């Protein structure tokens, strides 16, 4: 029986969850399943993977509609297991270099990793970034007074 540790099964899973479009590559086209396999094992352990294989059934042999049905079944039957799969697939996909390039192609300044480059740090601009008419107040220490709790019945027992 096909197990979710098989490359073809994993590829079918990730490609059904994240297919390609005119800009974004499909998850399997950029090798996402190569990361997803070991990560699911790390997260779920052997037993969890076996549970996942059983819950999904063989995917690779199905057409897109059949795969979608299998994944949707998992999503409603075992939301926690599905959430772990989704987290693994999404995070593994968005770290792929070709996907980072697609994000950049949308016009966003976006790095493969936070360091070492970071992003530009423009100086704070007080003309734009402070309130024109500052609002706000505080109660000074000497002016802190007992508030009237009469309307807050639910508190009466607790006040001391």
């Amino acid at each position, binding site marked *: 029986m096909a197990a979710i540790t098989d490359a073809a099964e994993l590829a079918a899973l990730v490609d059904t969850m994240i297919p390609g479009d005119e800009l974004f590559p499909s998850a399997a086209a950029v090798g996402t399943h190569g990361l997803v396999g070991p990560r699911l094992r790390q997260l779920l352990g052997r037993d969890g993977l076996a549970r996942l294989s059983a819950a999904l059934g063989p995917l690779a042999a199905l057409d897109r509609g059949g795969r979608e049905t299998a994944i949707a079944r998992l999503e409603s039957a075992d939301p926690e297991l599905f959430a772990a799969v989704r987290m693994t697939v999404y995070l593994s996909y968005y770290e792929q270099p070709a996907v980072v390039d697609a994000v950049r192609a949308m016009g966003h300044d976006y790095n493969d990793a*936070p*360091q070492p*480059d970071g992003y530009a*740090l423009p100086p704070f601009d007080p003309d734009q970034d402070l309130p024109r008419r500052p609002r*706000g107040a505080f109660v000074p220490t000497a002016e*802190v007074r007992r508030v009237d709790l009469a309307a807050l019945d639910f508190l009466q027992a607790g006040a001391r």
Partner: protein
Amino acid sequence: MPRHEPADVVIVGSGAAGAVCALVLAEAGIRTVCLEQGPWWRPEDYPHWGADWEWRRLTDWSTAVNTRRKAHDYPVDTTDENTLMWCGVGGSTTIYTATWPRFRPSDFRKGTEHGLAPDWPFTYEDLAPWYDASDALVGVSGILGDPSYPPRGPFQTRPLPPRRMGRWAQKAFDRLGWHWWPMPCAMIAEPFDGRPACNNCGACQNGCPRGSMHSASFTIWPKALAAGCELRTDARVERIETGADGRATGVTYVDRMSGVRHHQPAEVVIVAANGVGTPRLLLLSESAKHPHGLANSSDQVGRNLMHHVLGIAGLWVDGVTDVHAGVISAAQICCEFAETDPARGFVNGMTFHIVGQNGAGFQALGAHPGNVAPWGARHHAHFRSHFNHGIGFLLVGDDLPQPTNRVTLSLTSKDSSGLPAPHITYKLHENDKRLIRFAADRAREFAAAADAFDFKLNDFGLSSADGYRPPAWHLLGTARIGDDPANSVTNKWHQAWDCANLYVVDGSSMPSGAAVNPTSTITAMALRAASHLRDNFVDLRRATVTRRD
């Protein structure tokens, strides 16, 4: 069991508070040893350098102890929350996000104001110079002039830029007529004290490997070590030892690398193991003289646990927000509802923080509120409209200290050294629930004022059948300071009522939690307490009685 040379002071825990105590005492020539159960984390250990940084943030670098499950951590036995903390040199400042607002004057007077929490044994004005001194030590970015706070001492650098996210938020705040001001952050926007300015990388939820953020391992420990403090890592303290007279004689710890137990004698013991680790250790240190745990004759050790009552919203707007870049909370704080107004139907206040949303993977997962991009054919359309168009809106409310919210010792769970894990019970008070529901309504108003096309609130289960089960990253109140030995654990100088050479200096010392992040206050308190101990060390090292003054 190896016995070490007696120290003047032994400190348990090297985090926000322990590091400050170590620096102050070592600089005064007081022989100080700090024991830390975790290791050093080197800059290259951080996830920031690799494409897998988002995966690591939620797995091996997770801030949740029960997700990480490392030998240097301890598990937390609870179904009420997801406890977040970090164990190692620098403690939780290794991975926090350095949001650095101060408490307000009224936060120290809740006993006077409504009586559901005690007054602190000192006032805002008493702590103000220590706030200024601790800011000068760690480096804080910000700008003076916020009318919702008393005048204060200087910031060390200009504020961090708010990004387009912050500019969008400003307009919404202005439309609503609500207070806003640039959020103070212990993250420097210009070089300071030999440390480089932040480079806006946006991954502060993994900590900061550059040292731009105040993480005690970068900012304080190098100075404390240079001043002569001895720091032993992977040294897990099992118990604080006491003599026949009830005074502390030192600590027993296990070297986690060898498994060998050691005794470290000391004239004074400071516990700085955080709001969960500290009560746990005090409870583990029971003896004939202290049968209910050390410093626990009042039965207050472990009680009054506070975390802040929380929610996190996201709104998505028709504009680019730079929400993946920049310091997570370096935009605005809104204190419009920070003071008590009983007309709202509850006591205490709340603040709102404009926050970032991390990288593309986490944003596809819906960021903190979980507005997840659907899988399948609609995935990319959702990503296109939401990525870098979000604004995070964090709701932080002042939860009441309740004796039933508490840390005890687990009967079933143990750490890697075989010590009982802490067990946590944490339930919201009706007042907390009312407060966070009010806050959630304000978040919706804010989203409307921001012309958001999408909005999602994560109330951590409050409105679900399962109930509220928050991530808990502010660990407060479980060994509080006070004026009265009957309802506090230490006096106002953090000296235990029951054990005059034992000090508790960390998040557990707080009698109430205010409606903002606590670490600027924990650091100021630590500086104040350690300076008092230093200045009076000749007497206090021999003290047999804890005085009220």
